[in-house]
């Protein structure tokens, strides 16, 4: 124990003799770890957010397709779906997108039945209340902020060449922003008017099953009866969420490559050899009787301290960048051309095990990279080294 402590102290002393190099290495490793951790933690948080909500969506959602594009659903289809023995209830829905020229942004318009049982729970996310009758709307916080709307205000939304007046009865809080930043929740007659839907036509149908375990069978039967319909299963969505925002996403993969390159460069610097000062120092250690094991351990501790400090600072910086400042630039890239940016209200998804794994991912290879040059340097001609030769 005393010997290990002494070796650590020696490592600290060796780093202090070359403070510029030590600081540069710590900064380099912190940068690489910080970028890696920012991307991974943002993705993990988004996945967690979507994954936590996925099982609240309908067991099946049926859409009509025509020419490879979504089409509206008619009464006949509803009749078949409602009469299917495996179906407990259906909820035909009207929703879609509305371009708001004054913002240059798209609004997601969703209809809701004023007596929907979920609305009591949803109301806790609202400043104000949910829409109860025609001419009322609850809107997302970003949309409301963009136009300076508050509950009680009125807004005229474009419907073709005319405008439709809605009273804002509620505004979603920032905690719901990731779901509802650009949403306008209205009653069905308003949704039909805003989106141009005829009576009796619907965007899609949410289906609740008598037995959720029969989702596969019912989906197959619906697909057989309605060959042009698209049946979205809840269990598929939940599984797919683990992949959609994950490492398969193109930009994430592209960003990780240069990071990997930087890290390899740093490790290569360690492996490729030592400076004259370092060689002389190791020569002196050999001369005064240190055995090879101690020389290697001292080098390992030295690099380990550098890598651990860099990784820890990088991790902290990434955490503050993502969850303190809302990941500027990175989050903007994720939002694309979107004009209505949601409020960043994500909770970190990493647990202790995953954080320690990321730190170990940096520290272990970087520390081990010190062994090769230290091994070579410990086997040099000490006499020649001290006289100034290599």
């Amino acid at each position, binding site marked *: 124990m005393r010997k290990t402590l002494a070796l650590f102290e020696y490592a600290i002393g060796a780093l202090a003799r070359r403070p510029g190099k030590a600081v540069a290495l710590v900064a380099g490793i912190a940068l690489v770890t910080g970028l890696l951790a920012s991307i991974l933690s943002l993705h993990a948080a988004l996945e967690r957010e979507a994954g936590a909500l996925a099982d609240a969506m309908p067991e099946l959602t049926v859409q009509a397709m025509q020419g490879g594009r979504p089409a509206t659903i008619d009464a006949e289809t509803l009749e078949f779906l409602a009469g299917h023995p495996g179906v407990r209830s259906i909820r035909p829905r009207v929703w879609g997108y509305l371009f708001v020229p004054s913002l240059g942004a798209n609004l997601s318009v969703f209809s809701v039945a004023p007596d929907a049982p979920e609305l009591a729970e949803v109301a806790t996310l609202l400043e104000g209340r949910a829409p109860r009758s025609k001419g009322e709307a609850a809107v997302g916080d970003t949309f409301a902020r963009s136009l300076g709307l508050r509950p009680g205000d009125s807004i005229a939304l474009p419907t073709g060449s005319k405008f439709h007046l809605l009273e804002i009865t509620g505004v979603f809080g920032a905690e719901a922003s990731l779901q509802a930043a*650009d949403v306008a929740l209205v009653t069905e007659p308003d949704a039909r008017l805003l989106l141009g839907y005829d009576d009796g036509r619907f965007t899609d149908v949410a289906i609740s099953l008598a037995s959720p375990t029969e989702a596969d069978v019912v989906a197959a039967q619906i697909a057989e009866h309605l060959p042009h319909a698209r049946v979205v299963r809840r269990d598929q969505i939940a599984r797919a969420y683990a992949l959609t*925002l994950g490492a398969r996403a193109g930009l994430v993969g592209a960003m990780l490559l240069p990071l990997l390159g930087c890290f390899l460069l740093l490790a290569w610097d360690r492996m490729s050899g030592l400076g004259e000062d370092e060689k002389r120092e190791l020569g002196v250690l050999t001369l005064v009787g240190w055995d090879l094991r101690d020389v290697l351990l001292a080098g390992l501790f030295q690099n380990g301290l550098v890598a651990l400090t860099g990784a*820890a600072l990088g991790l902290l910086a990434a955490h503050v960048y993502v969850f303190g400042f809302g990941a500027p630039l990175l989050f903007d890239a994720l939002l694309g051309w979107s004009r209505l940016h949601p409020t960043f209200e994500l909770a970190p998804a990493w647990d202790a095990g995953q954080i320690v794994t990321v730190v170990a991912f940096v520290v272990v290879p970087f520390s081990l990279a010190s062994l090769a040059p230290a091994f070579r340097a410990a086997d040099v001609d000490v006499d020649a080294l001290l006289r100034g030769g290599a």
Partner: protein
Amino acid sequence: MDLRPKTRRRLLVALLITNALAIGAPIVHGMIRRDERARDLEARRALTSVLGTPDLALSSSSRWLRHPSLAEPTAPFADAPAALDVDPGGAFVAPRWAPEGVDR
């Protein structure tokens, strides 16, 4: 700069404490934020049920990025099947499906 043994020891302890705090702070903050976020989870799940989708409002510019769970697989390519996704957000959010109905 040569340091005295006592200074080295102090520096080592300070470095290890700093590292432990830098690694521990995100873990503790994560636990606190997850608890805070869990408080309104039921309400957000009710909102998911009302909207019919758990999709996040990350992009309001493309429907396949706004509602990847409900947009059909050909949505980004409806007008030009071999076209590149014009929205930079598309580089982040991978297409959900390969062939229709098949998990990737």
